[in-house]
């Protein structure tokens, strides 16, 4: 039972990590909370459904992040950059509105009934782990989540562009005086962020379900994760996503009566303890 729960928690955490790290990166560079991030994820999931039924799952896994990266370019060029000098809350509200519009368009096209995607044959089986059968597909999600964290870490810490991102996230004014072009980095980060949201959307299809409320559920989770992690702190967000996945998974089983409340209790508890969030290294101040 416990090993299965741990694996489940890791799988769901992986989705949260892919979503929240993208949000935290945008926040670090632009100081804007992108409330439309859940809608991007939703589009990714529905597009994934279409491509998986028309072609196959693997095509969706590659094509959807590519298509969604175009949304990132649009987000940067049409929203973040023109509104750069506006107040954070105004830009956040605009992204919130855009998210609602996008979600409604998706519902208009696909209808309101939940859809499901089946896992590709290669991943549809299960394996024995500690004596229990466990679906290979969930392990696959965890592996993708782990790979994306490692790739992100290497990119941020071992490349020059990654170093510039850390510099701008920490001190945008100093970085610009030293010649770092935050606009160009922001374009890259927005693209990465929406591509990751698209990837999470494709991955969620065969695991949970694709339904009209998925964007709202995900964005609330992401907000909690990013705030717990310390707004703008990438490592904080990743760690908080892990905690959130575990609390949610174990809470549903062991504290069933209050499981819905648990994330909020955790949020309140952590903010009372550390108002700045967990905020390890490289976060916004």
């Amino acid at each position, binding site marked *: 039972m416990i090993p299965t729960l741990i694996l489940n928690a890791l799988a769901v955490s992986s989705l949260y990590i892919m979503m929240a790290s993208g949000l935290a990166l945008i926040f670090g560079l632009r100081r804007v909370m992108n409330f439309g991030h859940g809608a991007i994820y939703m589009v990714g999931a529905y597009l994934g459904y279409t491509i998986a039924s028309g072609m196959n799952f693997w095509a969706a896994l590659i094509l959807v992040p590519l298509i969604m990266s175009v949304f990132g370019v649009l987000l940067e060029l049409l929203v973040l950059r023109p509104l750069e000098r506006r107040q954070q809350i105004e830009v956040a509200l605009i992204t919130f509105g855009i998210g609602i519009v996008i979600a409604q368009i998706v519902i208009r096209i696909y209808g309101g009934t939940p859809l499901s995607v089946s896992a590709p044959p290669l991943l549809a089986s299960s394996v024995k782990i500690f004596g229990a059968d466990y679906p290979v597909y969930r392990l696959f999600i965890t592996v993708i989540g782990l790979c994306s964290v490692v790739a992100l870490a290497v990119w941020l810490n071992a490349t*020059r562009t990654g170093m510039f991102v850390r510099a701008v996230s920490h001190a945008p004014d100093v970085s610009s*005086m030293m010649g770092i072009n935050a606009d160009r980095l922001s374009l890259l980060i927005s693209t990465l962020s929406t591509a990751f949201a698209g990837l999470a959307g494709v991955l969620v299809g065969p695991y949970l379900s694709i339904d009209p409320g998925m964007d709202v559920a995900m964005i609330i989770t992401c907000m909690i994760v990013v705030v717990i992690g310390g707004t703008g702190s990438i490592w904080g967000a990743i760690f908080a996503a892990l905690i959130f996945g575990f609390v949610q998974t174990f809470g549903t089983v062991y504290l069933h009566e209050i499981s819905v409340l648990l994330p909020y209790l955790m949020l309140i508890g952590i903010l009372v303890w550390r108002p700045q969030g967990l905020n390890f290294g490289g976060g916004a101040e």
Partner: protein
Amino acid sequence: MSFLEISDLSSGYGKATILRNLSLSVDRGEAVGVLGRNGAGKSTLLLSIFGQTRVFGGEIHVAGTRIDRLPAYRAAHLGVSFSPQGRMILPNLTVQENLCMSLATGRKGDWNLDAVFDLFPILRERARQPGVALSGGQLQMLAIGRALMANPEVLVLDEPTEGLAPVLVDVLTEALLKVRASGTGILVVEQHHALIRAVTDRFVVMAKGQIRGGGDSADMAAEEYAPLFEL
């Protein structure tokens, strides 16, 4: 037109005007010192070059390009680089990463990691440590090194000796003389008359957001300039 040409500049923060119709130019390879009391607008002058103030009027040109309406990062790309007051070293980056921030300018030249480490050997020893792990003098060396990594035509420094012991002021003076010898120009705001006299060709004195006068740095102590320092 000079390499760095500030003409008739009025700038400040929000609605407050700090600089009033200020003009100043620095040629390639030239060194200019800016003196003046606290609140005279010296830092505002330097921050205006790097896009951190609101420009109400006038123009700033670097290498013939008007930059006061361009994004802040452009100044460093065009060949002026900044060692700001308070050093502004990023604590979440290592010493070497702080230095490499300036590589964003894409400017090539003699100043690279090795050259900076030769100028300030202590930075080589501390290269892998986080930026916060340094003493005040080392932070200042890092700030100057970081600006040099941009291979500027004119290096801009805001109060480099602030809070440093006299022996460190001597070290910095030596280093800035080497920078000059390499052909790089300098625009330095400084309270230390000795540093200005040793490092720069000429000086200007600011008061109330304007330049009130100036002359050859070698003659700074001359009787005729005494009234300027009373301002």
